[in-house]
């Protein structure tokens, strides 16, 4: 199959935010639009100066004019767009036609307030579908796609179309990413790559090496980069703060260098142009476009973060500490590192960012001292951070005390009562499953505090249960029969079970199809539910021969009495 510019663009859309559904000859593209309205550069209504919410002396985060220094309640914008409408317009006027030319079908479009999906039916062009499947080496989702070899080996025009496709679904030309510089605030755009480390590193190389587009930095979704002082970890706790850094990676680029790519989505291109014109007027110097490694100043060394060992990190990075974005690029195999790996002073270059030509002759003692100084800087930072952590912990404690007043006390009472059942029911489920499957490995967990997807990530179960990783399923207790790739769910209740409780579990069951599902309570079902279940067994059905089991916990016997289905 001939890799045309049109196909390269579609491949870019898929690489950026696509899913391949092999058994349905279908490709789904996801277009995120978190903000309802997207705006250009904010300007002061009095003097026309740029306004920002700069943090210094601005506790209320108000827009302040950078010229007249006044608070600006309603900044003026040259352009404002309703993102959803604009995306739908682009789909109708451009994408649908392109896709129809290639596939013979108009794509299906759906979505909600923050996301739009379009799916491409390739059943009439199976050759193209096979071609795409092979390009992405049988991977099926954008969080695991890599730049296809055929794109890497193609000409510049094809590469530009590919990156343009990625930009349209994963690129965000917004003012909010500005950087303070002596000439003024310098706008940046970014490509947001979700959970995909390899693709980010490959794009970094393609942009710089092949297209000569300098990347200003990568805001990696890594604990050392996103939460360098472990503030978020302390604020949100281990549960949420321990993974909050892992959302996405942002490749930051000054828009004036991205002109040869740009965007096909009209509203993005329009705001992008405004950012380009603004930056070009200020005549920023190019001296900050030095390629890595770049010098790490002493105040840039970061403390060690608990998340450095997280299994959310790729093997190449797990258990390692990073002080600069480019060190992550280095470990992921980006091309610039090849110049230094295995060469003289490799370790010093990596730790300090000094280039070999900047390094005078160093003895082993000198190298030891460099390392000691770095560790000293890290230790000093840690001492400062500990003071910040204590303040945060104090604040959180006060907040918790306030929460425990009035009606919330009653809620907490019920919650604690429910939690009391988690441990005995987890044990009960384990015994129950071991009797059922004596030869298989069975794991049971209290998952009440987690979404199942997060829990599976933390416990290395994602590869086994990949299909369900993205659904926000939150049963209280889950059993994993690993060899069979099957789940068992328990929804725990206190008091009488109601119809609503059955319904909530039914929703999970219809999608995840657990081998067995229970609703178990400390009390018997309500009279109305008993009446309903006596005559409506089908209410509990969620698969061919699978029914939700309704049971009651017998505290004395430490056992469950199954009441329905009879």
């Amino acid at each position: 199959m001939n890799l045309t510019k049109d196909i390269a663009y579609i491949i870019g859309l898929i690489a950026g935010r696509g899913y391949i559904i092999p058994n349905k000859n279908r490709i789904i593209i996801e277009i995120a639009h978190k903000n309802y309205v997207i705006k250009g550069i904010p300007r002061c209504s009095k003097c026309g100066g740029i306004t920002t919410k700069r943090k210094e002396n601005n506790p209320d985060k108000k827009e302040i004019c950078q010229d007249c220094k006044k608070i600006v309640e309603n900044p003026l914008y040259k352009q404002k767009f309703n993102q959803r409408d604009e995306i739908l317009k682009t789909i109708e006027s451009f994408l649908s036609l392109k896709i129809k030319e290639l596939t013979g079908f108009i794509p299906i479009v759906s979505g909600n307030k923050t996301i739009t999906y379009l799916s491409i039916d390739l059943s009439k062009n199976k050759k193209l579908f096979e071609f795409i499947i092979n390009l992405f080496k049988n991977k099926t989702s954008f969080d695991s796609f890599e730049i296809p070899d055929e794109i890497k080996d193609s000409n510049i025009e094809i590469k530009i179309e590919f990156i343009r496709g990625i930009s349209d679904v994963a690129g965000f030309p917004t003012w909010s990413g500005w950087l303070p510089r002596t000439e003024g605030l310098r706008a940046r755009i970014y490509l947001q790559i979700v959970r995909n480390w390899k693709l980010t590193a490959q794009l970094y190389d393609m942009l710089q090496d092949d297209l000569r587009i300098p990347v200003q930095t990568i805001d990696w979704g890594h604990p050392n980069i996103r939460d360098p002082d472990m503030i978020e970890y302390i604020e949100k706790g281990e549960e949420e703060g321990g993974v909050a850094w892992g959302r996405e990676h942002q490749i930051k680029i000054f828009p004036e260098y991205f002109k040869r790519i740009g965007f096909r989505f009209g509203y993005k291109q329009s705001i992008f142009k405004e950012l380009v014109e603004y930056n070009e007027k200020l005549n920023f110097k190019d001296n900050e476009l030095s390629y890595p490694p770049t010098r790490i100043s002493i105040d840039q060394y970061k403390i060690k973060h608990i998340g450095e060992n997280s299994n959310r990190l790729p093997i190449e990075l797990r258990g390692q500490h990073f002080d600069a974005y480019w060190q992550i690029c280095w470990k992921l195999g980006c091309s610039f590192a090849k110049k230094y790996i295995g060469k003289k002073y490799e370790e010093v270059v990596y730790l300090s960012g000094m280039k070999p030509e900047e390094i005078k002759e160093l003895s082993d003692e000198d190298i030891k001292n460099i390392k000691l100084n770095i560790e000293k800087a890290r230790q000093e930072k840690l001492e400062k951070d500990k003071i910040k952590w204590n303040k945060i912990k104090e604040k959180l404690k006060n907040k918790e005390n306030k929460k425990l007043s009035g009606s919330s006390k009653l809620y907490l009472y019920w919650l604690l009562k429910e939690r009391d059942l988690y441990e005995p029911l987890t044990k009960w489920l384990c015994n129950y499953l071991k009797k059922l499957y004596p030869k298989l490995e069975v794991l049971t967990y209290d998952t009440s505090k987690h979404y199942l997807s997060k829990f599976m990530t933390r416990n290395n179960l994602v590869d086994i249960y990949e299909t369900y990783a993205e659904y926000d399923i939150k049963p209280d207790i889950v059993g994993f029969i690993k060899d069979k790739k099957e789940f068992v769910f328990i929804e725990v209740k206190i008091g009488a079970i109601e119809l609503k409780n059955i319904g909530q579990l039914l929703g999970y069951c219809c999608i995840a199809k657990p081998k067995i599902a229970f609703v178990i309570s400390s009390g018997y079902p309500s009279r109305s539910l008993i009446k309903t279940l006596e005559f409506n067994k089908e209410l509990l059905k969620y698969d061919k021969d699978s029914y939700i089991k309704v049971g009651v916990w017998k505290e004395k016997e430490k056992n469950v009495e199954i009441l329905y289905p009879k």
Partner: protein
Amino acid sequence: MEEKLTKIEFSNIIKNWLHKFLINKYGKEYEIIYVDFPERTLDLLNNHEIKKVRNISFFTFKPDLIGILKNKKNDNVELVIVNRELKSIGLRELGEMQCYCRLSKPLLSIWFSLQGLAGPIDRLVNHNKKEEILEYDNKKIIILRWDDFKKQIDKFSITPIEYRDFILS
């Protein structure tokens, strides 16, 4: 700046919309008896017509809004069940409605939301065509997003997709 709608305001918008919709779609065939927020579970609702619905004594649930329609030819009574949510609609919400639908087999069942269907579920039902969670009695639960900015139903939020013309025409 977009104003946030309260639950009560949203409920009233839906009630008005539903009333007009039922008249438009079913007005010729049915008499629209009742469109309101039930104050009790349906089996206990103090409405003469609903008592005629088959198996009403098992309807031990209270949707946010219901419509009661009476067939002009044979006096058969049909139900329309509507729930509403300010947030997005996920599996728990669909499961709850699935329960109501299995029991009451309504003429129509609708989840109204200000956010729409949660992304992964949208992908699953509208693009992957795995619609089991929506299906009951040869019909499907419908999900609609109210676009409060435009004061209308967001066409591309209508799920399942084949109901778009039915809802908007």
